[in-house]
C-alpha cells in the first residue's frame, strides 16, 4: 500500500499545513483496450475492479463512470448494513458482505466507519411477528446473529420509541447486533484509491453510450471519450443498467424507480440503533454527525429523475413522528432521491447473460449498499472465471425462466 494513513501521517501532514497529501487516484485518459471494463463507478463497480486486481491478477482494468465516483446510489443511500434475510441464498450473500465489511477499513486502510450498532426490524401485527420469528429461526440455522426481542427489550434499546400509544403498537422486533451503518462515500473512495494503486484506470465524466457486440460476443464500449475495446464487460450501473443492457440487445427484468431519503438537522446522540419498520413504514439511524438519516419507500412508477413524489416523504415522516413523537420537534434538512433497479423477486442479479463476455450485477433494489463488498467480491470472481461463485450462482438470470426465484419481498423491509 503506497498511501498509508494513520494518526502519524495526519500529524506529519498537519505540520506541513496539510498541503502535501498525495492524490487519492489518478485522472487517466482511457486506453484503447482493457482486459476488463467495469461500467459504473459506484461502490460495487470500484470494489469489483479492486477484487479483480487484487485476487484475480487482472491489472488492465478500467472503471468508467458517467459522473463522479460514487455519484449514484452509493452516495445517496441510508447506509444500513445487515444480513438477516429469510432465504439461505440471500443470507449467504449478504453475510458474505457483512464479514467483508468487518475488515474493510483495515483491508483498505481507509476508515469506512462501519458502526455495528445493531439493526432492529419492528413487528406491528401478528403477521409481522410470524414472519420475523420464522426469519430469526432460519437465520439462526444459517449462523447469523439475528434474535427476537420483545417489546420491553426494544424499548430498552430505543427508549424514545413510542411502543404502545400508536395506531399499530410495537409488538417486538428482530435484532441483528452485527448490523449497522457505514460512511457511504468512504466506500467508493477507499475502493477507488486502492484499485487505482493496483493499476486500475478510473475514468470519470465518461458516459458509456453503448455496448458493442458481434455475434453474441462483446467487443467494447462506445463512450463520450471514444471507443474502448474489451472482451469482458461488467455492468454495475444500478438504475441505468437496463438502459445499457438494451444497447447490447439484452433485456433484463428490471424496473427503475425513485427511492427517497432525508436527513434531519444534527442533534446530540438520541438513537443508537438502526430501526426499520415495514408496517409503520420508515427506517432511521443517527449518523455520527448527529443527523437522523431516514429512508423512505420507493415510488410506484418508473423514473430516472432522481426525484420522487412528495407524498412518499410525507408518508415517511408521518411514520417517524408516530414512532418517535419527540422527532416532531425536529426538522428535515435535506431530501433527495436515487434511482433503484428493482427485480420482480426483490433479489439481485449477479450473472452472465446470453452475450459472451457481458456480465451484470444489478437489481439490488433498495438494499444494494449493504452488499457492496460481497457483491463486488463475487462479481469479480464471476468475471475472472467466467462462471459464478457458488454464493452468487442462485442469482442468475435463468431464474426468471425456470422459476427458481428468491422472493425476498418480506425481508426487503421496503414496501414495493
Amino acid at each position, binding site marked *: 500500500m503506497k498511501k498509508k494513513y*494513520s494518526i502519524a501521517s495526519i500529524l506529519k501532514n498537519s505540520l506541513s499545513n496539510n498541503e502535501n497529501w498525495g492524490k487519492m487516484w489518478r485522472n487517466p485518459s482511457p486506453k484503447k483496450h482493457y482486459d476488463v471494463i467495469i461500467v459504473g463507478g459506484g461502490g460495487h463497480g470500484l470494489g469489483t475492479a479492486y477484487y479483480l486486481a487484487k485476487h484475480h491478477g487482472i491489472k488492465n482494468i478500467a472503471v468508467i463512470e458517467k459522473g463522479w465516483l460514487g455519484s449514484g446510489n452509493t452516495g445517496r443511500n441510508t447506509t444500513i448494513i445487515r444480513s438477516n434475510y429469510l432465504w439461505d441464498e440471500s443470507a449467504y450473500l449478504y453475510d458474505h458482505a457483512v464479514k467483508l465489511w468487518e475488515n474493510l477499513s483495515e483491508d483498505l486502510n481507509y476508515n469506512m466507519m462501519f458502526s455495528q450498532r445493531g439493526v432492529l426490524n419492528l413487528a406491528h401485527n401478528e403477521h409481522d411477528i410470524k414472519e420475523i420469528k420464522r426469519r430469526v429461526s432460519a437465520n439462526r440455522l444459517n449462523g447469523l446473529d439475528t434474535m427476537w426481542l420483545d417489546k420491553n427489550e426494544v424499548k430498552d434499546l430505543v427508549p424514545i420509541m413510542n411502543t404502545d400509544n400508536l*395506531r399499530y403498537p410495537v409488538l417486538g422486533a428482530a435484532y441483528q447486533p452485527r448490523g449497522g451503518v457505514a460512511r457511504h462515500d468512504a466506500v467508493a473512495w477507499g475502493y477507488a484509491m486502492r484499485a487505482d494503486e493496483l493499476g486500475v484506470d478510473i475514468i470519470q465524466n465518461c458516459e458509456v453510450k453503448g455496448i458493442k457486440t458481434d455475434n453474441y460476443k462483446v467487443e467494447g464500449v462506445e463512450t463520450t471519450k471514444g471507443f474502448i475495446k474489451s472482451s469482458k464487460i461488467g455492468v454495475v450501473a444500478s438504475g441505468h443498467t437496463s438502459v445499457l443492457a438494451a444497447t447490447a440487445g439484452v433485456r433484463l427484468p428490471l424496473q427503475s424507480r425513485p427511492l427517497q431519503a432525508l436527513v434531519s438537522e444534527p*442533534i446530540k446522540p438520541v438513537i443508537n440503533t438502526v430501526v426499520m419498520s415495514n408496517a409503520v413504514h420508515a427506517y432511521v439511524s443517527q449518523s455520527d*454527525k448527529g443527523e437522523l438519516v431516514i429512508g423512505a419507500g420507493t415510488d410506484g412508477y418508473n423514473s430516472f429523475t432522481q426525484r420522487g413524489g412528495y407524498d412518499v416523504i410525507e408518508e415517511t415522516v408521518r411514520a*417517524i413522528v408516530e414512532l418517535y413523537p419527540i422527532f416532531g420537534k425536529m426538522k428535515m434538512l*435535506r431530501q433527495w432521491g436515487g434511482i433503484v433497479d428493482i427485480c420482480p423477486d426483490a433479489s439481485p442479479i449477479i450473472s452472465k447473460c446470453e452475450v459472451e463476455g457481458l456480465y451484470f450485477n444489478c437489481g439490488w433494489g433498495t438494499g444494494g449498499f449493504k452488499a457492496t463488498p460481497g457483491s463486488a467480491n463475487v462479481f469479480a470472481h464471476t468475471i475472472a472465471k467466467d462462471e459464478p461463485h457458488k454464493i452468487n450462482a442462485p442469482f442468475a438470470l435463468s431464474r426468471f425462466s425456470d422459476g427458481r426465484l428468491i422472493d425476498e*419481498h418480506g425481508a426487503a423491509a421496503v414496501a414495493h
Partner: protein
Amino acid sequence: MTAINNDCQYISKNKISFTFDGKIYSAYDGDTVASALLRNNVRLVGRSFKYHRPRGIYTCGIEEPNALVQIISEHNEPNTRATIKRVYDGMEIISQNRWPSLRHDFGAINNILSPIFSAGFYYKTFMGPKGFWKNLYEPLIRRSAGLGKPPKNFRSKSTHQYHNTDVVIIGAGLSGLAAAKKFINTKYKVLLIEQDCYLGGILKNSNKVKTINELTPQEWISETEELILNSKNITILKNTLVTTYNFTNHLIALEDKFAGKKIELNKSELTLHKIRTSNTIITNGHIERFISFRNNDLPGVMLASSFEKYIHRYGVVPEKEPVIFTNNSSSLSLLKKLISLGCKPKAYIDSRKKDNIETEIKKILKDNDISFFSDAEIEGCDGNKKIETITIRQGKSFTKLKSSMLCVSGGYNPDIHLFTQSKGLVKWDKNILSFKPDTPFQKTITLGSTSGNYNFKKLCDEINEKLSILKTKKVSLDINLNVPNKFSINELWETKKKNNSNWSKSFIDLHNDVTIKDLKQAITEGFDRIEHLKRYTTNSMGTDQGKISSINSLAIVSKMLKKEISEVGTTTYRPPYAPLSFAAIAGRSTYEFYDPERKTSIHSWHLKNNAVFEDVGQWKRPWYFKASENETMYQAVQRESKMLRENAGILDGSTLGKIEIKGRDALEFMNLMYTNAFSKMKAMTSRYAMMLGEDGMIKDDGIICKISDQHFIATTTSSGAPKVLADMEEYLQTEWPHLQVFLNSITEQFSTFNISGPKTREIMMKVFPDIDFSNDAFPFMTFKNFDYKETKIRIMRASFTGELGYEIYIPPKFGLKLWEEIFSCGKEYNLIPYGTETMHLLRAEKGYIVIGQETDGTVTPIDLNYNWMIGKNKKDFIGKRSLSRPDTSREDRKQLVGLSPINKKDIIEEGQHIVELNELPKKITNPIKYLGHVSSGYHSPNLNHSIGLAMIKGGKNLLGQKFFVTATGKTKNIPVEIVKPVFIDPENKRLTS
C-alpha cells in the same frame, strides 16, 4: 455599543422578558431572538460544530449559519434560528454545543487540535485495533458532534391546508408586491406568500429605496397591501415560507401560526400549505454573501445588509461604530443610515479601485471624516470570543483598528434555490458575479433580484414584460434610490493572509467549520469534482445549506482548478429551502389518525364483551374474548376452541371481502381468474376457490357462490379484498375487454357471521324458525336467500372450523340486532363468541390453510396438495402456465404436511425449522441444513397436545418419518412425526353432519 432606531415601525413598545442561558433579558414584542440579544449587547450566542469556536449572529434571516439556539420552553426544540424565531414573554432559550458553559467550553480543545482535524481526518485514522472504533472512538466522536440536544415529550397538532390556484407569488417584497398588483381584480386566483409577518421585503428591511411613486416605501407598502386585500382573488399568507418546489407546480409552504406567541398545545401551531398552482412567480429576492478572511467567524462579523436590516426592521443598531467592508456599491445605504442616526462607522473598506467607487460614497466619507480605504481588504480580525482588532491591508501596508463589529458585503446571490428545485437551469452572470435563473423547466417566472436583475429602474419593465403572458394589468413604478442605480462589484472571494499559520482559519462554511485550507487540501488529494469536495469537506452541507457561502466556494474552487465557474457547476440544491418541521410534514395524519380504523357493525358489542382486538389491515377484529379480567390469551383461546367443538361459537366475519360478479360472460371470467372449474357447478352452491398470480403462486382464496352462470358472489380474505377486486377489474379492462362482466365490491354491504359447532343447527332453528336446516334441505356448500324482518338475508352452509357451520349475510344496519338475537337464542346451548386466534387454531386442527401463513408468495396449490382445486380441463387460467416450469414442478418443493410431537408435552413453535439433528451446536458457524419451517403451531385443546402445519421439502413422501423441530433459545430439538395435515375429523363427518 448598540443604539436604537426610533423610526422603526415594526417593533411594538411592549416590553417582554426572556432568558438566555439562564439570564433574564428584556426585549420588545416583535423582536427575534437575535434582535433581542443584540439589543442587550449579547454577541456570543453559540459554539461551532467541529472546533467549538465562539460564534455570534452573522445574519438577520433564514440564511443564518451560526446563531442556532435551543428553545427550552418549547419542548427543548433544538437548532432554532435565532434570526427568525420571535421572542415572547417568558421564553427560555439556551445556547448549544458547549459544555460546561458558552463562555468556557471544554470542546474548544478541538480548535487547538484543528491542524490535525483536517479534511478527511476521520477516514484516515481509527482503522484499528479491532473493536476500538465501535467501543471507543465512535462513541466519543458521536458525543462531540450534533449541535442541539434532543427535544422532549411532544405531540404536535400541526394541520395541513391544500390549495388549488392559478398563480403563486413567492415573496412579498418590492417585486412580489408589484407583481401582485398586476393581478388585482383579475380572473386569476392568486396566493401571495411572505415569510415575514409584514410585507415589503427590501422596502422594510433596508434603506435602499427612498421613494416609490412619490410615496415613502412604508406608505407604498400599506397602499398596495390594502389594494390587494380588497381584491377578492388574492389571498395573502404571512409568516409562511415556501420550502419545496415539486414537479407540476406543486409547492410546500410552512406557516408559523404562533410567531411571537407562546404555543398553545391544543391548537395547531404550524400549518403546512400544500399548493398546486398553474404558474409560480418567484420573487424571494437575493441573499448577501460573505467574504472569507482570517477569523471571519468571530462574534462581531455580520453581513452588511443584515446589519442594515436590524436597524430598519427591528430598530436596533447592533453597533454604533462598526467597520464596513465591501466589494460593491450596495453598502452606501447602510452608510447613509448610520450617519442619519448619528452613528459613525469606524472605517469604510472598499475593495474596488478608488476610481470605480461612486462619488457619492466618497463624498459622504469625506464629509463625515470617516477613515476610507479603497482598493483595500480586511486581512483578518482578532479577539477573545469577540472582535477586538481588525487588520486592513491596503497595498503593502497594514492598518490595525480597534472595533467590535465588522459589516461585510461580498455581493448578492439571486435566491435560486427554489428555481433549481423546480429543475430550471441556471447561468453564470459576470456582471453580478453569481448564478441566475436561465431556462425554466416548469411554468416558473422569476422577477427582480431573484432573476438577477439588480437594476431598480428596469424592474417595472421586467415585471410588465414577463407577466404579459398572463392577462394582467400594467403597473408603473417610479423608484428613487439611496444606492447607486447601477450595481457595481469587484470580484473578491477571499483575502490574503499575512502569515501562513497552521492555526489561522478563513472559513468558507461557518456552520460546518470548513476552511479554505480544507478545500485546498481536498483538491490536492484529488477531490476535484464539486460534489466530491462537498462530501469530503462537508462544505455547504450544514443546516443553512451554505446560503451565504456556497457560491463563494464554487468561485474559490474554480480558481484553484483554473476553470470557469460554469464548468465547475453548482452542487444540487435539495429541498427543502430551509429546515422543515417534521410535525408539520406529518400534519394530523399521525398519532390517532396515522391510519384509518375500520370497524364492523358489531364493534360496540365486541367492546362490551371484553374483546381484545387484532389489527388486520385497517380492520379491528376481535382476536379473542376475555372471560375474566385475568384470563390470558392462551387460556382464552384454549377455552374458546374447546367450547366451540363441544357446543357452538360465533365469529364476526364482516371484514371478509365480498365481490358481486355479473354479466353475460361471468362464468368464463371466473374460470380464468380462479384455478377451479365452475362450469359444472350447480346454481346456488358454493365452492372453496383459489386465485394465483401469473407466477403460479397462491395470492388469495375464498368461497365462490354461484347464483347462475351469469352471476357469482366471491369472498376474499379480509386484507386481500381490495387487491382481488383491483386485479379482476384490471383483467377485465385491459386483457379481456370483450368479456361482458361487471363487478361491485359488496364487502361493506353485509355483516357476516360464521356460526359453527355441533349445536349450531339447534341455534339456527331457534333464530330462524321458518327455515329448514336439515341436511337434505340445506346441504353442505349450498346457500339460500330469505326474507328476514324488514330485510333479506343470505345463509350459506360452510365452515372454516371443521364443524357444522353456517355463514349469515345481513345488511349492516340490522346486523347487531341479529347478532344479539342469536346470542339470546344460543344461550341455552352455551354459544360463545370467538376471535381470529381461535379461528386459526381450529382451522389448523382441521388442516385448512391461511393465506399469508401457510403461503408466503412462493407456494403453489400443488405444494398444498390442493391439486383437486385445479380445473384440469381448463385450457387456461391465471398462473396455470407457471405451474409447469422446471422449478414449480420439482418433486422436492416445500410441501404442506402436519407435525405431531413424539413426546406429547413438547410444544411446536410457529416459525421454527425442521432439521435432521436432534441437537444444535451452541454456536452455529456452518449453516445447518433444514427441510422447511413450521407455518402454524398451536396447542390443540381438543387433542391435548401441540400440533403443527409445516412446509417441508418433498414433504409428501416423508409421511410417518421422524424429524426434529428447533426451539427458541434451546439447542435440544423436539422430535416430531410427519403426519397428514389434518388432525380432526379427517372424514369430514362433523362438517357434513
